[in-house]
């Protein structure tokens, strides 16, 4: 490198100077101080909730079977939150994503009941989900109706479609073994270790790649800490989950429940694929741009309408996949699949994870973190049971009322963080 180049590069000191671990930490501190908290609140919430519930009822909460349960309970909300993330990034909303999931699940269930092969049932259900999403997208992007109104209308009409599909059967059981196993089934202990090995290798590769492209801004020590932390956590969890977690009585009869639940690799694959789409492809970059400043995107030659249309289509498809998780959780579909609080929890999960409702800011990982927070609340509260926290009133923490109030407060806290950070910036 010639002298002039070195001098020139010195103008971008922050890009080219090698950083120590301390620099990275102080950078992060500065970022938090400026109100850009990212996923920090959700991570803190997970730690706090685990600490509270673990303290209140360690025998029931801190068990491997509850850990596996929690993953299953969180999975559908996480996937639908991933779906909603793509429209939230545009500053739009999809209030009908829950029913899109319900309709997709029911389409699959009815096809399976008619004896269709699984892949055909899944394909047609995916097509229906995409079509529902694209319909919303068309109304928003081409007709120009605000997404809140379009999806409010769809909330009603998709529910109608769901009722028509289920008809008077009430509940439609899903008999397909793979679908039933998705939530509830487990990898064998050997495959669990294989999954950990593959996952850690890919993680190490991606970290190494980031470091190599960072001109020293990502220090080796940070990479090692991240990789070491991930490896320690993955190995510990796998060791725990590979233990037989059947009840004592069942164990005596020879029942074995062990291994990592299928939902873990399933969610991880979705997480990696969608993150890749959002951060490494031109489509993802354009989506972020439209969310940040539609006018700037339009002037840069981006087809804003096409991005809006396809984002809703994508939201529909992912929500449809979430519907399979919903069906698998209870091995059946009914008029309430994807109804009630499903959508609210999904949007809540994305926002609690740090995705902004105002568009332009968010990650797919946020949906996972927020989904875990919102699954922890109904999972842990019943285990707390009847208590009188301040010795004044008796509160039954297992009641639905308390659950809803806590979930609501969590969402409110998360959106306050979002709003305040925008004010600060």
């Amino acid at each position, binding site marked *: 490198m010639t002298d002039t180049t070195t001098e020139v590069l010195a*103008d971008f*000191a922050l890009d080219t100077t090698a950083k120590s671990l301390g620099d990275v930490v102080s950078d992060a501190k500065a970022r938090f101080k400026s109100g850009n908290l990212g996923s920090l609140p959700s991570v803190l919430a997970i730690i706090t909730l685990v600490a509270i519930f673990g303290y209140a009822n360690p025998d029931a909460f801190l068990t491997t079977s509850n850990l596996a349960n929690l993953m299953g309970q969180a999975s559908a909300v996480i996937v639908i939150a991933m779906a909603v993330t793509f429209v939230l990034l545009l500053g739009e909303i999809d209030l009908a994503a829950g029913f899109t999931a319900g309709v997709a699940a029911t389409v699959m269930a009815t096809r399976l009941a008619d004896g269709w092969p699984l892949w055909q049932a899944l394909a047609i259900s995916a097509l229906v989900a995409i079509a529902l999403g694209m319909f919303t997208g068309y109304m928003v992007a081409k007709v120009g109706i605000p997404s809140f109104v379009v999806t409010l209308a769809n909330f009603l009409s998709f529910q109608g479609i769901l009722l028509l599909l289920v008809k008077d059967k009430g509940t439609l059981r899903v008999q397909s073994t793979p679908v039933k196993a998705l939530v509830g089934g487990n990898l064998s202990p050997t495959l669990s270790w294989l999954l950990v090995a593959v996952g850690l290798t890919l993680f190490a590769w991606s970290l190494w790649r980031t470091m190599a492209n960072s001109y020293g801004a990502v220090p080796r020590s940070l990479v090692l800490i991240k990789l070491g932390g991930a490896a320690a956590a993955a190995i510990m969890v796998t060791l725990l989950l590979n233990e037989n977690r059947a009840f004592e009585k069942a164990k005596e009869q020879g029942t074995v429940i062990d291994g990592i639940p299928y939902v873990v690799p399933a969610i991880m694959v979705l997480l990696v694929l969608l993150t890749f789409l959002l951060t490494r492809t031109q489509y993802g*970059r354009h989506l972020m741009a439209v969310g940040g400043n539609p*006018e700037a995107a339009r002037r*840069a030659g981006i087809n804003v309408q096409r991005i809006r249309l396809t984002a809703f289509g994508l939201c529909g498809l992912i929500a449809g996949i979430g519907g399979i998780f919903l069906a698998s959780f209870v091995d059946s579909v009914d008029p309430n699949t994807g109804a009630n609080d499903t959508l609210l929890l999904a949007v809540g999960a994305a926002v609690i994870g740090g995705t902004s409702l105002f568009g332009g800011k968010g990650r797919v990982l946020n949906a996972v973190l927020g989904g875990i927070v919102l699954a922890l609340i109904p999972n842990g509260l019943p285990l707390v049971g009847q208590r009188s926290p301040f010795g004044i009133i008796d509160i039954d923490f297992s009641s639905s009322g308390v659950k809803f109030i806590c979930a609501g407060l969590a969402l409110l806290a998360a959106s306050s963080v979002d709003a305040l950070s925008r004010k600060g910036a």
Partner: protein
Amino acid sequence: MSNDKPILELQGINKSFGPVQVLRAVDFNVYAGKVTALIGDNGAGKSTLVKCIAGVHPTDSGEVRFNGQSVSIHGPKDASELGIEIVYQDLALCENLDVVQNMFLGRERLKHGLLDGSSMEQAARDTLASLSVRTLKSVRQQVMSLSGGQRQTVAIARAVLWNSKVIILDEPTAALGVAQTAQVLELVRNLANQGVGVVLISHNMNEILQVADRVSAMYLGQVAADIEVTESTTRETLVELITSGRSGDVGLITNDAEEEVTA
């Protein structure tokens, strides 16, 4: 100096919106390597002229030559294909994206169908370095965290990145403080020194005298004067050209004599 051919040449441009004639037989030249200031009061037709060049508005009549070749600009795409870029006042940056991502927005470099981050980052840094930009510490900063002057810099550098031949800056310093104005003016000068034909729209006479090589003054839809900036050019001359279309013996002839001259 006059033996240099203009890179962009507009001749006899007319433009009406309904019954209102906004541009009247406008001649306007942009020279490579020179800063041409475009001045005029509000409503004099500066913005309309720029939008005609950008292809936002079609012209009613008149000729546009680029590099001596007659061209027709029917839309913004035609303009940018010729190498004409316009940096509007509102900059049109995405605050949630970083400097590199904004500079390459809509024209991302791909490798195996995926975004080629490191190549774009290097090119962005090279472009900024070639303009002697000293105000950006990192090209990985989100635009959200940049000052007004830095944002202006990013917007101008984005135009440079595409090897533009003509860059039109619409009041680039209007919203900036003193120090940042100086930075942007230095950047404007560097742009011209690189051989780009720069058009600077501004209301600040001092800044024009400081940085411009030529001044085209517009008055009521006509070009009142097209003068070279010399040491004897004064602020007063420019202000008179803007307010009355005439200063001393340069500028438009008064209404009584107008017919005689145009004949």
